[in-house]
């Protein structure tokens, strides 16, 4: 397993002048990935899951983060890693994953597409136990820059956009502390400067630091109960960043095999930060 910190430093130092419209057709595979239970427990505690043997649906993304970073830190990678923004994430769990199962993780980058605020990149992650595919994830990231005005509008560069967020009374209200990004960075290894501190976020062109999308996604899934621990598919759209600190409200619309949830700003409820669907 590659070590994330030096890779991030290298990616940051070489971030200027990265260009090109395609990513190298390459899949990085790491075998025999063992879950550190103390780290998993810290993650579960921070995201609202019970400390348990069943791996939370977003957790393999955290496990694969160093591999993903290694892929993006390579000299021939066309985008700068620091400052990249998570737009969309779709995960399917084929069967409940036990923390004792050694995983084989693979990471491959897909297409680069024009976006009105820069360019987007698809990344595919897969987790296997032995040869059995147990988990797969498609992420879409935005590399901010000179956008393409006639690029498809909306926040969904591929496929359908998010469903309408549920309205009405909040099911929960969470106060997200100023240090949430640093706390999540310490359990996930994702030390992207946009999440850490107002100053590091400003350096990347943000007015303030923002919550990790994968934290808001995990916290929302944890709040929806045990469904996502078993076979299920979650699809999340990160529609507006959550500046830290702030207070967000969870709104939920449950149907038998499909739940739609959203996080909205408590202060300005018309601001939707995230829309998520969970299907079984």
């Amino acid at each position, binding site marked *: 397993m590659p070590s994330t910190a030096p890779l991030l430093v290298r990616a940051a130092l070489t971030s200027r002048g990265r260009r090109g419209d395609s990513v190298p057709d390459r899949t990085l595979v790491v075998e025999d990935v063992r879950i550190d*239970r*103390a780290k998993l*427990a*810290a993650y579960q*505690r921070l995201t609202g899951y*019970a*400390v*348990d*043997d069943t791996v939370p649906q977003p957790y393999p993304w955290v496990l694969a983060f160093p591999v993903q970073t290694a892929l993006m830190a390579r000299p021939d990678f066309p985008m700068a890693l620091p400052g990249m923004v998570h737009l969309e994430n779709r995960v399917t769990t084929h069967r409940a994953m036990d*923390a*004792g199962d050694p995983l084989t993780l693979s990471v491959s980058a897909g297409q680069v597409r024009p976006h009105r605020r820069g360019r987007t990149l698809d990344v595919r992650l897969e987790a296997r136990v032995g040869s059995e595919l147990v988990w797969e994830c498609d992420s879409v990231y935005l590399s901010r820059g000179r956008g393409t005005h006639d690029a498809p509008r909306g926040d969904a560069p591929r496929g359908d956009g998010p469903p309408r967020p549920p309205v009405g009374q909040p099911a929960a209200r969470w106060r997200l502390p100023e240090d949430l990004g640093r706390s999540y960075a310490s359990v996930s290894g994702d030390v992207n400067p946009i999440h850490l501190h107002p100053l590091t976020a400003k350096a990347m062109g943000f007015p303030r630091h923002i919550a990790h999308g994968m934290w808001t996604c995990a916290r929302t899934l944890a709040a929806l*109960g*045990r469904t996502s621990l078993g076979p299920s598919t979650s699809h999340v759209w990160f529609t507006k960043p959550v500046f830290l600190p702030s207070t967000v409200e969870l709104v939920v619309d449950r149907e038998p095999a499909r739940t739609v949830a959203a996080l909205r700003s408590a202060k300005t409820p018309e601001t939707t930060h995230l829309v998520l669907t969970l299907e079984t």
Partner: protein
Amino acid sequence: MTHPRRAAVLGGNRTPFARQFGAYAEAANQDMLTAAIEGLVARHGLAGERLGEVVAGAVIKHSRDFNLTREAVLGSSLSPTTPAYDITQACGTGLEAAILVANKIALGQIESGIAGGADSASDAPVVVTESLRRKLLRLNRAKTSAERVKAALAFRPTDVGVSVPANTEPRTGLSMGDHMALTAAQWGITREAQDELALASHVNLAAAYERGFFDDLITPYLGLTVDQNLRPGSTLDKLGSLRPVFGKGEGATMTAGNSTPLTDGASAVLLGSQEWADAHGLTPLAWFVDGETAAVDYVGGDEGLLMAPSYAVPRLLARQGLRLQDFDFYEIHEAFAATVLSTLAAWEDDDFCRDRLGLDAPLGAIDRSRLNVAGSSLAAGHPFAATGGRIVATLAKLLHEKGSGSRGLISICAAGGQGVVAILEAA
């Protein structure tokens, strides 16, 4: 109101028990209780089910866990419309929870329920010193700047520090082990007898694992599949080499080997009416016949701290018209080996049974081959509130294996000079 009916024990589940600061060092009571309930739910196909109620507790409890059991239910796959409440009766918590659920089922108030408990000796609440706590509260309620300054000036360096909860009786200042050492000396319980009982606990628990007895009673948790305290290779020599830790001087007999260690874990037991069991395709393992509690005046030294079960059992026997010898299995919680041996000695003693229990004749001896046959707390460990659930599930399964008409007695001592006992009968 209908006449009381019988409540059945339908199954049980627990985490393996971990030694303090062992495999569950990072797990909270709520995590462990949720895991124990969830395993029970999974094994009995109860996902989405609304149960009558879930009753559980923890002896060492954070103030934030005021709704521990309800929170565990909400974290499980049970229907969120399942009510729950917390209880605490020290080490009797789990068995008392089972009595409460069984009683409501017997009265027809509920059809089904879960009784359980969890305790963590690792994730214990840390409390600031009493003087600091009072000064912080005073500072917090100060309204004017002058009041705030005055409150702040009251802080002293000596206020700083933390108090970790200890296994000490508030009224006597003696630890449970110290209390037990007094009782053991009073009853002349020898070191050899204690070590033999401890060894039997390890041998019996190991044998029960070996024959797959726990396959449907335990769900692995955080990588642990077997009780961390179990020493299958223990011998009398090894136990005999340990230094005494409780009691003083030559007569000290209680060691780390014949006393239960501090442990983390959780357990849960499913109970229901016959009708509910039938409707859910579940087979009753045992009937929850009756329960009794007792307390002794240990503060004045009138009786030993952990001797209350020796008073509760004869009352229960009298009510049920049974003799002490009418049981196929005895589950006497091994807080310490000396607890079990002192209790048995008391029941054999003419003077005790006459003067203390008011009986014409002593209860007599039991067949020791029927005692804790699948191991007990000395080998498994003793996460306080989880022990009752461990024992109820174990005994119910033993009785089911033994067959119709067999009967078992449970005896659990608890802090505060209390005891909780119960009778189960094979279904």
